């Protein structure tokens, strides 16, 4: 084998197997921005620590040796705090783009999703959800444990969805080691009245023209697989007669939906079953 043989063989192998489609610069841009933000935050913490130490040291010299007064551990998970935490984290991002987000609706459901958990029983929740907006333009973030949705070959499933025309777009990326699945789909309501928010079915991309324009909804969705069972779904759904109109109506860039999805604060433990 000559050098030339090897070079030829490598190039032939690469060009025969290379996946089609260009690489998306949005992914490294987003990861890079986040790294910079994290560094700046750590720099701020370090500065506070240095200033704090400079202030504390003279007093520390006078104090007795440290005993019980240790710094507090991070607050333990409290399911009852999740409505506030979810709202704060999600609102911070959505507020960048949505003029008046309005009030939040929080819901928590156990594994039997028909039941709605009241406050005081949120630790039984397998799903927690915050919703903003109205039926015709809705933002929703769900945190849930659902092994069936977290398992499987993510990229292959995504490819199958687009091949079956169940999604206009289905892209898989990795962010901080987590799979992130971005989709754009069309839906129509299951009920007769399109404004009765009682469930939706997916409209195939080649059947969009067959649905009355007033019944068409489009949804951008970001699904983040955080563990074997834990997922976050972040969606923006709009009612629009065409995909073009929907794209003009969406307000939150996908990057920001991803930012919400990968937020580590948006996580719940496997529920306590009573």
């Amino acid at each position, binding site marked *: 084998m000559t050098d030339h043989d*090897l070079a030829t*063989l490598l190039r032939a192998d690469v060009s025969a197997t*290379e996946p089609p489609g260009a690489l998306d*610069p949005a992914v490294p*841009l987003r990861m*890079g921005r986040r790294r910079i933000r994290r560094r700046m935050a750590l720099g701020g913490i370090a500065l506070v620590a240095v200033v704090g130490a400079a202030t504390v040291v003279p007093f520390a010299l006078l104090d007795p040796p440290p005993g019980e007064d240790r710094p507090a551990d991070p607050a333990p998970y409290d399911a009852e705090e999740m409505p506030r935490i979810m709202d704060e984290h999600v609102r911070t991002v959505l507020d960048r783009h949505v003029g008046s987000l309005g009030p939040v609706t929080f819901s928590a459901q156990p594994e039997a999703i028909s039941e709605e958990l009241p406050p005081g029983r949120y630790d039984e929740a397998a799903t927690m959800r915050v919703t903003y907006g109205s039926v015709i333009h809705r933002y929703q973030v769900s945190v849930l444990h659902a092994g069936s949705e977290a398992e499987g070959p993510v990229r292959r499933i995504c490819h199958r969805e687009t091949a079956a025309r169940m999604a206009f777009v289905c892209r898989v990326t990795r962010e901080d080691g987590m799979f992130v699945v971005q989709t754009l789909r069309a839906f129509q309501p299951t009920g007769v009245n399109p404004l009765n928010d009682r469930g939706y079915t997916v409209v195939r991309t080649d059947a969009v023209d067959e649905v009355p324009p007033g019944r068409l909804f489009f949804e951008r969705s970001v699904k983040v697989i955080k563990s074997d069972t834990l997922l976050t779904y972040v969606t923006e759904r709009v009612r629009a007669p065409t995909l073009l109109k929907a794209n003009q109506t969406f307000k939150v860039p996908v990057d920001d939906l991803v930012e919400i999805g990968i937020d580590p604060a948006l996580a719940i433990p496997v529920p306590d079953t009573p």
Partner: protein
Amino acid sequence: MRRDQREREFTEFYAASAAALRRTAYVVVRDWHVAEDLTQQAFAKLYVAWPRVREETRMAYARRTVVNECLSHLRRHRPETPTDAVPDRIVDAPDVRGDLDAALLLLPARQRAIVALRFLDDLSVAEVGRLLGIADGTVKSQTNRALETLRKRLPQLALEELR
């Protein structure tokens, strides 16, 4: 540097170089999806370092970061089982592409990186040495070892070329 300028320059550089670097990564890790992830991670690091990296060294910086990401990934995941016992001869091996894959997987990760840089990216011994932080002599000896392994695994290739 203003953020919009950084992002514009970065996006242009990405459009011009990401595909080629993903190919390099693929030769090292032998999986397109992993290659893409590692290329994206390398570019995220490049984005952070962007104001400090001179324009004339950007490609070398990006390539080094991609290769380092690949080697770190392989260290963490160890998908390969390098062996000294390379078969002397493959009697029945019509599938050259499948053979190439198997042959490359016989190489230790760093040898695969050297093969990618030298034979796919056409870098000189000195450039590969600088990029991997190793002596020119090491690049040469590792290249020779890699070629020796590949020759044993792919004997039919040279024969085909001669016909």
